[in-house]
């Protein structure tokens, strides 16, 4: 049974593309056949996050318009042989594709892949409608901020209106130091407000920036975000994985520096 999952958020810049790249790569590392589709026409980015930007020949719009076959537009990942990327077009706009065309293309892809992951553009306009048209499951990405949560709530409403029955939440860029201080909503607060199942959270980790710089998804690496994304990936497949512990190193070093400070004071 193959699954079509749309990764969406409403608000831009909360980590849709990073989540798509890492969950897709994670699923491939578990041996699944995965195709990642960048549906952000005009503002493509999944290719650079995956480090595959130099291999693009054809794109999603070419497939839809019949300029090439689906297979010609698929870029094989350099790390996992069962992972493919369909890049978006950079010089076109969202109206180049309609929901019917997306459904048709994804129906063809569904037959050959275990997971079709759609990286949705920000907003609730045509790009969003195209991305959700063929999906049967959604991952809503948010950060513990008022604006991102408000938009996520709107997106959840729209997904429910489009008869999605599986909508899961990923809370990104969580900072435990701020939560402890009371200056950030906790994961429970966010889940409580949005009232959809939690697929996982990702700590705010500089390794995400480093990984994006290098075009290497960090899922599975020995970093907090890498572990978090691997846990999320496993939960996507239906495995039960307990929520990870918050980064301890931060508190450990904080303690060490506190000890030093105290010594200096003495």
């Amino acid at each position, binding site marked *: 049974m193959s699954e079509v999952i749309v990764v969406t958020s409403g608000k831009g810049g909360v980590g849709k593309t990073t989540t798509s790249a890492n969950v897709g790569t994670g699923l491939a590392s578990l041996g699944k056949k995965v195709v990642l589709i960048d549906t952000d026409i005009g503002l493509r980015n999944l290719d650079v996050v995956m480090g595959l930007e130099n291999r693009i020949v054809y794109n999603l719009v070419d497939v839809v318009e019949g300029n090439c076959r689906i297979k010609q537009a698929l870029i094989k990942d350099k790390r996992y042989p069962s992972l493919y990327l369909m890049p978006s077009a950079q010089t076109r706009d969202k109206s180049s594709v309609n929901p019917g065309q997306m459904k048709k293309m994804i129906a063809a892809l569904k037959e050959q892949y275990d997971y079709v992951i759609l990286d949705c553009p920000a907003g609730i306009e045509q790009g969003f409608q195209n991305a959700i048209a063929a999906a049967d499951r959604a991952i809503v990405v948010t950060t*513990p*901020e*008022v604006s991102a*949560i*408000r938009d996520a*709530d*709107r997106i959840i*409403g729209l997904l429910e209106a489009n008869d999605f029955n599986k909508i899961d939440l990923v809370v990104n860029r969580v900072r435990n130091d*701020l*939560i402890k*201080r*009371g*200056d*950030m*909503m*906790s994961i429970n*607060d966010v889940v409580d*407000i949005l*009232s959809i199942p939690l697929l996982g959270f990702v700590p705010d980790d500089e390794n995400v920036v480093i990984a994006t710089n290098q075009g290497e998804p960090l899922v599975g690496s020995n970093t907090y975000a890498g572990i978090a994304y691997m846990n999320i990936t496993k939960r996507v497949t239906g495995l039960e994985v307990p929520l990870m512990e918050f980064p301890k190193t931060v508190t450990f070093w904080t303690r060490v520096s506190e000890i030093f400070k105290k010594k200096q004071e003495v």
Partner: protein
Amino acid sequence: MKNIFSVFKKKKSGEVAKDRLKILLISDRVNCSPEILERIKADIAEVISKYMKIDVETMEIQISKTGMKSMNASKTPTLYANIPILDLRNK
């Protein structure tokens, strides 16, 4: 539903964010602006005032997504009104 003690304690920004969101999302979800809620409140107050003396200043109304226990649909938006009665007798 403000706690009396919260008046004396300065709220942390995380809590402020949560409280603001809760109110914001209620109006977002039902597509009902705070102004309309305010008008509903005024109308309810007017009707109830025909029969008993109520405290219009402290009355509260809100739309919650939790729904009532008796209803099967757990996410039915429900209008809650909290109206303190000052005098039960007819005016």
